């Protein structure tokens, strides 16, 4: 039973809180790009990096452990670039509240999409795995590019107002949002209808001895839900790589992990994903979400 639905006062408060966040963010997203990414981007970088030092110790510790061959000066430079990227990413995300589909299509280009289309023509389901890399929220435009349904498997947020905000921006261009705990049932039900399901699979999954890998020079538990789902539904597994282009646009690339999930060895898909993500991170480290406490528990 949802207490918000049954209590008019709570319902009014809920909508009021939603509007009090939604309206300022919507207006922020309407600002010209030069103001939003230029002035506000620099201001946000200054506030987060210089003034508040937002999770600075976490970022520095993660970077030093993950990239042991880098010197201290290089680590500091990467951390600065990361804060610049984080600031721009947040401002880009605020634009998703108001940006039109045609404008967003110009900001995102796809590479190797032919591979995905080939599997679609073979009527195969596709599970796409990715990390918290680049601006993953820009993938919300994928349904406008692809001729089939695109689902995002997500973990519901604890705060209903935040949940509604995220639902709003993710669903604006036709993305279907499936809570992680309902994903298996949903995908099995829709098995005969080829579609793509996106998984962000680099978050901390809790401690589990079976899913422990060496990732970025550290013993790391990886989320293996995508692997389990792909085996259960015999889906093709692809990796999504997001690259920032010099003109502040994003290139979304697809590469194959396996098209025979049922024949793979245990943890092979998760291992392959971890290797690919590691390569992506090492190529341009500043674009990964270093501020999350990925290794908060020693495994």
């Amino acid at each position, binding site marked *: 039973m949802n207490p918000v639905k049954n209590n008019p006062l709570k319902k009014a408060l809920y909508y009021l809180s939603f509007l009090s966040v939604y309206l300022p*963010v919507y207006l922020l997203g309407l600002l010209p790009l030069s103001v939003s990414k230029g002035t506000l981007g620099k201001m*946000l970088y200054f506030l987060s990096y210089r003034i508040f030092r937002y999770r600075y110790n976490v970022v520095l510790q993660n970077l030093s452990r993950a990239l042991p061959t880098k010197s201290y000066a290089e680590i500091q430079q990467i951390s600065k670039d990361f804060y610049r990227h984080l600031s721009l990413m947040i401002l880009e*995300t605020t634009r998703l509240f108001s940006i039109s589909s045609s404008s967003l299509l110009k900001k995102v280009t796809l590479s190797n999409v032919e591979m995905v289309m080939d599997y679609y023509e073979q009527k195969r389901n596709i599970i796409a795995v990715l990390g918290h890399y680049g601006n993953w929220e820009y993938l919300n435009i994928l349904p406008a590019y692809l001729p089939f349904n695109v689902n995002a498997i*997500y973990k519901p947020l604890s705060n209903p107002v935040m949940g509604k905000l995220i639902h709003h921006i993710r669903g604006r261009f036709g993305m279907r949002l499936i809570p992680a705990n309902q994903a298996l049932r949903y995908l099995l039900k829709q098995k005969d209808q080829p579609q793509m399901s996106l998984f962000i699979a680099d*978050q*901390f999954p809790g401690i589990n001895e079976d899913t422990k890998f060496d990732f970025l020079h550290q013993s790391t538990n990886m989320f293996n839900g995508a692997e389990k789902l792909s085996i259960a539904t015999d889906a093709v597994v692809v990796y999504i790589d997001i690259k920032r282009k010099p003109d502040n646009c994003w290139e979304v690339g697809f590469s194959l992990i396996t098209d025979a999930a049922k024949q793979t060895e245990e943890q092979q898909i998760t291992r392959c994903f971890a290797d690919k993500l590691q390569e992506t991170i090492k190529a341009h480290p500043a674009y990964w979400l270093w*501020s999350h406490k990925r290794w*908060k528990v020693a495994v």
Partner: protein
Amino acid sequence: MVRLKIMTALTSNPYFWLVSFVLIATVLFVVLIAYFLKIIHEPCEE
């Protein structure tokens, strides 16, 4: 009386409104960004 005079002088000055607007906008901006940072990090760290 003195307080009233100060308030009248302040509110008739356009810079007072400009500075107030900038301050309120900055606070709002910081709160919104904090909100976004929470949205970004929460699913990764449960």
